[in-house]
């Protein structure tokens, strides 16, 4: 019975040809972390993708679209497996998402080369993909890992901070982040620790070293749950008030509900902040807050942008995504209203964009959030694009 029905449907689809195709939905795969201690990040991204879908009225270029979410479980091997499934089994038009650089690096070839499918990174930006591994099928709506810490380092350099102690997780992104801050911060590096990633959440030994080294500041990269634990232990070790903390990706809308007042006054760098004064951002933040009662994070904003980037190409091509050369050419124009107020693509298909310094504060209702206090970098390019063979 079932197969008969299916057969009828197939014949109908064949008989009607094009009109049926116009109504088949565009398929978008979305890989992120939806379980375990980092699930809050994936949830923020999913909410933003759903909001983008709502704002688009469920259609791109006249065609309905569907999102297939897959959970990478915070593991590179699982991420690769799920990406493979999306390409081969679901035959998606585009894959977006990816929080973690190591998951993205493991999944990249499967999607862009073996699957010849366009991949949009909504967060991870490993230096390899910005440089020699750059790929015509790869687009970023975030940044290259080095850039955000570069903005932070530049700000600290200008502020006259003399020495820093650096800490990050020992994986692709952690190494890029520390390399990034060292590109722009020229003061003394009093110490540097790459901690076991992701299983080390106890930083007692490292914090004791920081206390002894007495730097002017600590620079950290500990996203999500790691940032929550780090900040608590930094405060417990009695370092708050003695050695200021500077961070990237470690104090944000994901972690603040748990970090609360401990985070107050801490500075960080970011390419998107919830108070950026453009119309589309105001609408996004207001609608997100109304729906979920919390602030969105840059993870969410970048995911929203990923969907809008696909939509911009679909609009231009009237919903026909079959010619990949045309889709790539349209995407490269970045012809959409990004929540960070528009950006251009560099030759390696990473954005050329501003970076801001933000501070953890309480909003008028008493909710913890971050606000922009300075522009650190204008139209910043990543330091790897010249190594990319694409021109």
């Amino acid at each position, binding site marked *: 019975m079932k197969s008969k029905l299916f057969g009828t449907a197939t014949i109908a689809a064949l008989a009607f040809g094009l009109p049926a195709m116009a109504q088949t939905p565009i398929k978008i795969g979305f890989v992120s972390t*939806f*379980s*375990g*201690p*980092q*699930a*809050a990040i994936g*949830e923020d991204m999913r909410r933003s993708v759903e909001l983008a879908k709502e704002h688009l009225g469920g259609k791109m270029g006249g065609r309905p679209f569907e999102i297939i979410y897959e959970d990478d479980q915070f593991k590179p091997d699982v991420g690769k497996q799920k990406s493979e499934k999306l390409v081969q089994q679901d035959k998606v038009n585009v894959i977006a998402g990816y929080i973690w650089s190591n998951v993205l690096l493991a999944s990249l070839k499967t999607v862009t080369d073996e699957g010849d499918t366009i991949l949009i990174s909504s967060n991870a930006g490993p230096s390899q993909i910005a440089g020699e591994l750059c790929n015509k099928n790869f687009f970023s709506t975030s940044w290259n890992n080095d850039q955000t810490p570069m903005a932070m380092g530049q700000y600290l350099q200008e502020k006259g901070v003399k020495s820093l102690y650096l800490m990050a997780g*020992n994986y692709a992104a952690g*190494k890029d982040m520390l390399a990034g801050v060292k590109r722009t911060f020229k003061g003394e590096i009093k110490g*540097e*620790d*790459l*901690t*076991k990633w992701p*299983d*080390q*959440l*106890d930083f*007692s*030994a*490292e914090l*004791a*070293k920081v*206390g*002894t080294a007495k730097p002017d500041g600590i620079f950290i990269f500990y996203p999500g*749950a790691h940032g*929550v*634990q780090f900040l*608590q*232990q930094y*405060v*417990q*070790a*009695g370092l708050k008030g003695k050695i200021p903390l500077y961070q990237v990706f470690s104090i944000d809308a994901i972690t603040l509900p*748990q970090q609360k007042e401990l985070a107050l006054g801490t500075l960080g760098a970011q390419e998107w902040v919830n108070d950026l004064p453009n119309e589309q951002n105001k609408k996004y933040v207001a609608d997100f807050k109304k729906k979920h009662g919390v602030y969105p994070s840059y993870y969410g904003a970048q995911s929203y942008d990923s969907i809008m980037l696909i939509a911009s190409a679909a609009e231009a091509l009237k919903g026909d995504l079959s010619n990949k050369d045309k889709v790539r050419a349209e995407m490269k124009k970045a012809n959409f209203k990004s929540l960070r107020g528009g950006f251009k693509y560099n030759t390696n298909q990473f954005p050329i964009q501003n970076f801001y310094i933000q501070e953890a504060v309480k909003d008028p209702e008493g909710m913890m959030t971050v606000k922009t206090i300075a522009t650190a970098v204008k139209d910043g390019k990543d330091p790897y694009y010249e190594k990319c063979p694409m021109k």
Partner: protein
Amino acid sequence: MDYLLLQVLNGVQLGLLMFLLAAGLTLTFGIMDLVNLAHGSLYMMGAYIAWMLIGWTDSFVLGALLALPATFLLGIVVEAIVMRRLYVRDHLEQVLATFGLILFFNELVRVIWGPAGKSIAVPAFLNRTVEILPGVPYPAYRFAIIVVGALVAILLAWLVARTRIGMLIRAGASNRRMIGALGVNIELLFTLVFGLGAVFAGLAGLMAAPITSVKIGMGDDILILAFVIIVIGGIGSIKGAFVAAMVVGQIDIVGRAFLPDFLKTFLSASAASSAAPAISQVLIYIVMAGVLVWRPTGLFGQRT
């Protein structure tokens, strides 16, 4: 010198947590001859139950105290339903069954509390530092872990060495069939020992929770270390588990605190900082291999 003291304390704190986990494991392995891979699940359940109770009671201490009898009950139920059937089976079947139990508990937690991780805040009165020496601050919560861990270790030593139940435990560890023949209610003894092991694992889990957060599978990684500890210490020996846990705690800290600087003396800074975490992870296993070559039954193992 102060720095060294801080790092030694960090090692002791880690070692005591590991000891709590390893104590239960070495007892069940030594006395009941049961390989219990699901011991890490009891560690996880302790943390989750404490998280739930702390939410209900709005007090860390009260929630933690209530979580202990709860994990004891859980241990007894698990023993009665599953473990009791495994004593007569061989080790391979025990490994299979208790591995199944790990999957069961991970899934159970997912169903009850959802896939996202939880975090337990350090209680306000411990969210500060204590001066262990004048001018040497140490996080109060970690100091509390050391105190509680040391008290439990002393309590356990007293229980095993000085009480009737301890006598039976020791007798059970050296010859199970004989104490059964002497008319001791072995079933009850096994149930009690398993429950006791569950309480220690749960206590370790809930004390570690404010540092490492509560998550599915949190016991799986640390269980491997607990096995390393009981192998180094000698299976069935509480004293061995204690000594080995202290050694492993110190090795871990040495690997994190001193190895990077040592490597920098002959490697480039970036190579040293990425090699150090990898080497320190391996260091513990090298020590285990060394101990096994020197003493195949572990430091305090009695069997030949």
